């Protein structure tokens, strides 16, 4: 216990008026004693408050010091360095590790390193795990509804009916059905295959997986490698991977979670600054989803006895198509988009070649 003689001059507010009263503080018997300063006639009655009931201010380099007492009264520092010295003398060891960390640059540097590590861990494992859990809670009908709406709006804006002969469509559909049944004999999530073509050349050879199991395949993709429908099945396997793992729904959940986290970190500043990390994080998750879908594609092709090597040929054909587009001066957003959301083509070619070994 510190000696009673160690006093601090401060101001006392009773919580009922804004009049400050000169006070002298000292600690004794686990209590803070607040007495009128001796130099003037007493302006209030001396009181004692148990230390544990006081909300002490944190030590900072700037700003005033205010200790809240129960019942709305408070004590405020006259001289901030004097207050801090007095607290250090009379209440040793009271300061929290948090305050010590934020008052030392070394502590802050350590916190920054730990923060980056923790954020990376949450990004890599925590969020995808949570997103999978949340996605599992969302009923499949929600996916179906969103998917149906998405297809309707695509049909209105970008797609028109397929011009492929009915027997070609039927052949691909049958082969794909066999392939899915072969890889998932225990039963697979529902899917439905839709043949469409783009309203202009922009869409090109493409396939999309919509939530709820709808897979859209463009005519240009079927015609890209004439006579080689194995690669088309590989692409369908990839889209089936998105369907089976409910990637669209998961990414919806992940994007909202990232957006929420960013708004906490950068709370009261422009929305513009908040969007960049959300976009970057979403692109990262999107590339992970593509890798998972490629793995599913390999599993399906193996089950159907197709060598994953056909996909290498397919990607080379896609690259040739892109090259032609660029030469004709039609290189626009479509390529940039694929570039950002999918892993590099070389990496994917290597992946499928390795899977064929």
């Amino acid at each position, binding site marked *: 216990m510190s000696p009673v003689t160690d006093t601090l001059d401060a101001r006392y507010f009773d*919580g009922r008026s*804004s009049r400050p009263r000169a006070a002298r503080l000292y600690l004794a018997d686990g209590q803070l004693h607040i007495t009128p300063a001796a130099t003037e006639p007493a302006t209030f009655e001396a009181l004692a408050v148990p230390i544990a009931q006081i909300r002490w201010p944190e030590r900072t380099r700037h700003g005033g010091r*205010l200790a809240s007492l129960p019942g709305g009264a408070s004590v405020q520092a006259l001289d901030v360095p004097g207050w801090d010295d007095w607290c250090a003398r009379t209440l040793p060891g009271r300061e929290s590790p948090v305050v010590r960390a934020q008052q030392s640059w070394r*502590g*802050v540097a350590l916190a920054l390193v730990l923060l980056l590590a923790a954020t990376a861990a949450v990004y890599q494992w925590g969020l995808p795990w949570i997103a999978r859990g949340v996605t599992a809670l969302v009923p499949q009908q929600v996916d179906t509804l*969103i998917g*149906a709406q998405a297809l309707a709006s695509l049909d209105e804006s970008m797609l028109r009916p397929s011009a492929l002969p009915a027997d070609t469509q039927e052949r691909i559909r049958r082969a794909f059905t066999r392939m899915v049944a072969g890889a998932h004999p225990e039963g697979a999530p529902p899917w439905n295959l839709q043949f469409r073509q783009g309203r202009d050349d922009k869409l090109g050879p493409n396939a999309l997986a919509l939530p709820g199991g709808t897979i859209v395949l463009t005519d240009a993709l079927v015609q890209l490698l004439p006579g080689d429908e194995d690669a088309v099945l590989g692409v369908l396997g990839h889209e089936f991977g998105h369907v089976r793992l409910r990637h669209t729904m998961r990414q919806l959940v992940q994007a909202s979670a990232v957006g929420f986290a960013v*708004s906490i970190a950068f709370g*009261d500043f*422009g929305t513009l600054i908040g969007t960049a990390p959300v976009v970057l994080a979403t692109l990262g998750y999107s590339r992970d989803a593509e890798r998972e879908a490629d793995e599913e594609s390999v599993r399906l092709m193996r089950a159907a006895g197709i060598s994953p090597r056909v996909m290498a040929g397919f990607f080379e054909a896609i690259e040739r198509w892109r090259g032609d587009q660029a030469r004709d001066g039609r290189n626009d957003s479509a390529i940039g988009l694929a570039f950002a959301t999918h892993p590099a083509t070389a990496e994917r070619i290597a992946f499928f070649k390795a899977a064929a070994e």
Partner: protein
Amino acid sequence: MTMAIDTPAGPPPERHPIGFTASGSEYFRIWIVNLLLIVVTLGLYLPWAKVRKLQYFHANTWVDGDALGFHGEPAKMLRGTLIAAAFLIVYSVGSHFSGWAALLAALAFVGLWPALFRASMRFRLANTSWRGLRFRFTGDTAGAYGALMPPLALALLPFAVAGLTVESGEGGRPAAPSPAATGLIGLCMLVFFVGLPFFLWKLRRYQHGHYAYGGLQTRLDADVGVVYGVFIKLIGLTLAVMVLAGLGVGLLIGIGAIGRQGPGMGVAMVATLMIFAIGGVLLFNILPKSYLQVRLQNLLWSTTGNEVLLFDSRLKLGPFLRLQLKNYLLIFLTLGLYWPFAVIGTRRAQLEAVTLETRTPLDELTRAAGEEDPSAAGDMAADLFGLDIGM
């Protein structure tokens, strides 16, 4: 800036400039440690972090030699955070389900948000003190609904109603929204945007008209016409900027067409794109936002007060604009690490532009303050939805 508050003849008012002594580097340290604790506790530390931040900001806001105090209790605010988070999740998930669920969610939002907003104001003010005396927010529930329900209903309900008509399409395949639904949405959006300055004015009048300290209560004497004036000037400014940007783009395309065959095309393209990006952000984001912030702060705070006490805000657009430009650039260049410095710099500019004028010596502003029990739910709800309380 005109002062519409009637000023009785007498001695000239005492002027008390507001001071802000927080430093960017100290707030940076507080921010990093707070963020670490929030991440490792998966968000549960949020209220403690928030209280620490508010206490730091309040302890560095000085009026006539005394700093503000913040007294919110984190444990109570955690409950508020959880209530608000549950509300937000139910709302955002609910609105993804069927049309009826979306309508229900929108109705719940419109019906509950004004009450949460009022609770948030009460909580914040009741936990803020100056010279040992708590502030109060005296606005009633009816006032909150009157100010907030019309704009919320206009912004949310048409989409929910239109969603219903979409769902009733044939054969499970959604149909396009009916022309009637599209018309309803269009009409509501039109009313919303034309009425926006009015709704803002009503909300601010509700807020600024119910701040109380002891027995003193403020009121807002700004005229709704002046708020419309600010918005009309903002539209004019935006149009001028668009014309200017259009001219700039045309010029650059012209130059690009001439220099098309040059070998340094790629570099020039990248440089041009960078200039476009920075210029676009400056012209279409920072400039209009800063203009609105500066004009509204000056207008609203200079007309807030009562017979003995009056605020005067003189925030200057030029320096504020330069500050924001610097903030955005440095945040971008430091990948976000400059953010706490930007927050402190902005807050300093906003607070130090304000002066408090009193006709009675400040020491005499003593009255009994009624104790109220504020609910913690609202304060955190306001933060979750990003609604700025603008103190």
